[in-house]
């Protein structure tokens, strides 16, 4: 072994110091909160945890969260594909502005995201009174939860697909069309196979956020027990009622979903590194 250290390598003391700082910070800020969730959830045994997640209110919150995600995610996926197709395959004025607008929901506070729908559909809002006349309820009901969730997860699929499809260009699609393929057949047989991993990646992140959204949903939910309580809202309710074991049981379920998401995300990044690298270069 050479006694010389390469010029681009840090001295041992620096390496150890920075390594300890990095791992220490991650352990303190990221690992400990995760550990405490599982510790509190399983503190009284797995049976209590199981009771916590299978009592009727918890189950109804799980069902509602899944339902909201099952509506919001396909909508945003369809939008993401349409937006990426428009932006990657055509030139038109205002394109950069459109891309910025698509990213906008990411920089809006979740609470503001909920607030805007209250101002549109609330009884003091633009359409609230008119809709109430027809007995249509948006706020404090499923449509409000879905709308708020769509807003906060709006850019996820689009922002994965746009750089990817811009990177891939238009040649393959143009070849397919000039050989007589229909528009749909071109998309299905040429574009989709090229973007499938990026699409899956975007859907995965979109779904995780849809299941876990709290602030926006909290504003529009009305907190009606058994009716408009999603999983995160149920956690809040139990916690504020000092039912810590119950709160942490549902929280642990959400944390497992988060860990599953991270595992799948890492797996996708490993296996489809090339395709996804195109996205993250930008």
């Amino acid at each position: 072994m050479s006694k010389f250290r390469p010029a681009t390598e840090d001295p041992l003391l620096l390496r150890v110091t920075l390594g300890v700082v990095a791992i220490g910070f991650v352990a303190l800020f990221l690992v400990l909160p995760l550990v405490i969730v599982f510790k509190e959830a399983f503190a009284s045994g797995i049976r209590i945890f199981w009771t916590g997640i299978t009592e009727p209110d918890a189950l109804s919150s799980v069902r509602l969260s899944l339902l909201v995600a099952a509506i919001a995610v396909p909508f945003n996926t369809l939008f993401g594909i349409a937006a990426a197709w428009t932006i990657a395959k055509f030139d038109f004025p205002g394109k950069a502005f459109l891309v910025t607008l698509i990213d906008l929901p990411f920089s809006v506070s979740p609470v503001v995201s909920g607030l805007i729908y209250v101002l549109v559909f609330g009884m003091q809002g633009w359409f609230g009174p008119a809709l109430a006349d027809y007995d249509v309820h948006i706020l404090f009901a499923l449509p409000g939860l879905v709308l708020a969730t769509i807003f906060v997860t709006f850019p996820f699929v689009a922002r994965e697909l746009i750089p990817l499809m811009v990177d891939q260009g238009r040649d393959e699609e143009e070849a397919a069309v000039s050989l007589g393929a229909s528009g749909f057949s071109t998309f299905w047989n040429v574009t989709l196979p090229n973007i499938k991993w990026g699409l899956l990646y975007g859907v995965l992140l979109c779904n995780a956020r849809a299941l876990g959204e709290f602030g926006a949903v909290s504003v529009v939910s009305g907190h009606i027990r058994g009716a408009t309580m999603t999983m995160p809202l149920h956690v809040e309710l139990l916690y504020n009622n000092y039912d810590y074991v119950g709160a942490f049981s549902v929280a642990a379920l959400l944390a497992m979903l988060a860990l599953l998401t991270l595992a799948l995300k890492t797996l996708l990044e490993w296996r489809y590194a090339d395709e996804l690298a195109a996205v993250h270069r930008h």
Partner: protein
Amino acid sequence: MSAIGLSTFARRNRGVLPGFGLSLGFTVFYLSMIVLIPLLALFARAFSNGMDGFWTAISTPRVLASLRLSFGMAALAALIDSVFGFVIAWVLVRYRFPGKSFLDALIDLPFALPTAVAGIALSTLYAPNGWIGSLLITHGIRIAYTPWGVLVAMTFIGLPFTVRTLQPVLSEQGQDVEEAAATLGATRLQTIARVIVPMLVPAMLTGAAMAFARGVGEYGSIIFLAGNLPMISEIAPLLIITKLEQYDYAGAAAIGAVMLMASFVMLLALNGLQGWAAKRR
């Protein structure tokens, strides 16, 4: 853009690929329905009583205190995240050690973990009888139910932004400049401080701006930890919800409008920064 202008434009620039009108139409329609029109409703309501009404709603001591807290603590959290984000990104890109890919995957936890879960976990940790809180209380430091709780939660939520914007830049950066610095007699620390860090400034600012924007708007992970005392540890998003519960829609909209304008400014700044970073690379 008028419908006629759009269709003549589409005809002129159609190219061979189909679906321009349909995909652009759907994109713009969906964007307008979900994002633009509701945001317009926010501004309409915030200024429904004119400029004066807006200022009156914003300039109460309680609203100002909450805005100061949200923006101030978010700036501080972005600073902390930038420093530690740099160290973590550096360690992840440059060093090899067992468990590195696990550490790397873990960085995204604040993205994936629902904020309510993070909130109750942090609150349990930092409460005076919690694992961290009980250690700190013996030194007279209280985090939970004080403004410092806001800082802790914002630091948690912002960390992935700084790490993830620095990481790709660091791994793409050639090491030839470091070798040049070394041959010219610089110590390793000098090279890091005078050569490497200056090259990372655009990425660092981008990451910090993203962490800041996220921190300003954050709600779920903070409310469990901060105690939510008006004038002391009450963040602006929480005050919006309080105003809504009191049916003060104009007041809620006014605070929302301020936060939204801040989001616009941050978005523009981020676009500028990314343009700058792209040019530097």
